[in-house]
């Protein structure tokens, strides 16, 4: 087996992280509109998968499309221009961050939870039909495992023996719902119920992800049928930028006031709401951050770490600079 190139993976993750931090900054400044779902916290999963894709492989992503698009080598300037709603953006400003598309990379997004399953299945169907020996990846959250079309697509990929890698990024939450409270059985067993083999992995450990994905992808390329990855992670910024639960968490006084006004209703349900607020706080620990986890692994070569950080920081700065230059030029259709 080839070894994971952890340094390269780290660089991929860092690029994505810094890009999303720049996006956050622009979003906070009001330059980016709509709900913005970051992929911060799931970079190890995305890097572990996307780094192993070849030219001609396809990718169907969910509402957290930025990391996979960035790591797939799609021009970050085009992506950022798209976020700014610019006519020169990746999708001419028509799609925005939840609807990124790149035909040449066979990469498609959707904001509809669960739709990446059928999407990847259709890509794989076409690729297999065209005898291209390529694979298709579906990225989705654990909440999407309760969406009918996702389940249907697992069955389709299974019975048609299609090269689909189903990658479930499990952060325990679907918006403000703890998924465990609304999900019966085990996800690995669900995949098995459709005849698909599954791997469970710590999604903050990029090397671990890379390894199981490497095994799964070689099976895919060997025409062994679809594979399922169940990877655990957290979202460092909650569900989306401005997540109200996080706002409460970060403003304990707001919380106290709220609790006060609700005393009359004290009871099981009130407890459950406060439990949620505690739980979301609990997950924002550094030890769950895949970048921190990887840095720790690589800490023996502090110099190289620093060098990469500098290089990537510079790259992203330039991306932002270039983007804003074009943006300032005004919205021109050409």
């Amino acid at each position, binding site marked *: 087996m080839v070894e994971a190139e952890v340094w390269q993976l780290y660089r991929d993750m860092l690029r994505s992280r810094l890009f999303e931090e720049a996006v956050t900054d622009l979003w906070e400044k009001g330059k980016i509109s709509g709900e913005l779902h970051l992929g911060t916290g799931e970079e190890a999963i995305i890097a572990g998968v996307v780094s192993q894709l070849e030219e001609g492989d396809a990718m169907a992503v969910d509402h957290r499309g930025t990391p996979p698009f960035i790591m797939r080598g799609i021009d970050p300037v085009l992506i950022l221009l798209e976020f700014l709603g610019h006519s020169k953006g990746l999708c*001419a400003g028509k799609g925005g961050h939840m609807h990124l*598309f790149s035909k040449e990379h066979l990469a498609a997004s959707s904001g509809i939870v669960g739709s990446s399953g*059928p999407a990847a299945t259709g890509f794989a169907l076409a690729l297999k039909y065209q005898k291209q020996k390529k694979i298709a990846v579906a990225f989705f959250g654990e909440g999407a495992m309760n969406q009918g*079309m996702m389940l249907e697509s697992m*069955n389709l990929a299974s019975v048609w023996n299609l090269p689909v890698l189903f990658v479930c990024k499990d952060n325990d939450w679907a918006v403000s719902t703890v998924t465990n409270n609304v999900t019966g059985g085990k996800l690995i067993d669900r995949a098995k119920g459709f005849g698909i083999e599954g791997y469970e992995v710590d999604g903050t450990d990029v090397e671990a992800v890379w390894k199981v994905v490497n095994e799964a992808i070689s099976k895919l390329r060997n025409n062994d049928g679809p594979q399922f990855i169940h990877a655990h992670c957290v979202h460092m910024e909650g569900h989306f930028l401005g997540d109200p639960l996080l706002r409460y968490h970060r403003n304990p006084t707001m919380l106290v006031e709220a609790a006060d006004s609700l005393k009359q209703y004290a009871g099981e349900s009130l407890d459950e709401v406060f439990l949620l607020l505690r739980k979301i706080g609990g997950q924002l620990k550094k030890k769950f951050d895949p970048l921190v986890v990887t840095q720790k692994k690589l800490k023996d070569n502090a110099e190289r770490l620093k060098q990469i950080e500098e290089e990537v920081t510079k790259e992203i700065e330039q991306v932002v600079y270039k983007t804003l230059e074009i943006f300032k030029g005004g919205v021109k259709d050409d």
Partner: protein
Amino acid sequence: MTKMGFAQAIVSAIEQAMAEDENVIIMGEDVHVLRIPKLLPKPNLFIRFGKERVKYTPISESGFVGAAVTAAMAGLRPIVEVLFADFLGVTMDAILNHAAKISFFSGNKWNVPLVIRTACGGGYGDAGQHEQSLWGWLAHIPGLSIVVPSNPADAGGLMLSSIYEDNPVIYFEHKMLADYWLDYMGSGGRTTVSFDVPEKGLEGEVPDKWESIPLGKLNKIKGGNDITLISVGVGVHRSIEAANILEEKGISAEVLDLRCVAPLDIEGLKKSVSKTEAVLIVDEDYKNFGLSGEICAILLEEGLSFKYGRVCTENTIPYSRELEDQALPNTKRIIDKAVNIVKK
């Protein structure tokens, strides 16, 4: 020129496209045998093209229609079959939020050359969960073309253009015109039942080799001066029948077959209505918020003034054959309404 059945014409046009272009595939439930009863000796796509190109599916419409969207984006030209228009309900997310929107969202850089083929319509007693038409409903969604042929020649020619269209097309195939559907769902091999099947829709002359009929061009079936009857599918035949009887009553009705519900042939409509100044829409789809209203709005926007009426399906289609006949736009209702409009 040769004679062909409506359903046979569709299959034959698909066959031609599949022979021409490797990227054309067909998928859906039972596609491998659905056409056995009458068409086994005729083109049977499954047997001719094999199971990779004619793919039968599980009963997972939202999954496989969703998959067909991206298969189209990856270079195929899939024809995906949703057995009945009623079952489009299950697939609606794939249509509304994906097929219809992706080209737009991609900044027109990525197309979805997909045909969704579906059987529609009533008149054989299957009730309102299996007999809906829904073409006007689908046409509400920007980004879709909606095709509803009324005869074999159109059925084949429009299927060919649907397959080669670069954006999604929903292709409606009326069960009263498609012999195998009526055999399947209606008679079931019985000789004890009969249906009001429009002969000219069921079978007719077709070209030896299919040529595309452009989407969005209506077909004037019969000229007339007093009123324009506008319809699609089986309604066209009911309208012709009504027009012939109206003729006897001294009313000269023009009959237009829209062929496509979207895009609409605004020029064609204008031309006829500016002459007759009276419009009757005959629509087997539901009356409210559909085709009959849209045509009215377009004509007014075009500055025409005209007398107006519509004969449509107004409620859920009942099971009882008698109630069903009253619920669907029948010839009597068309005649009564036309007389009523002209006399206004």
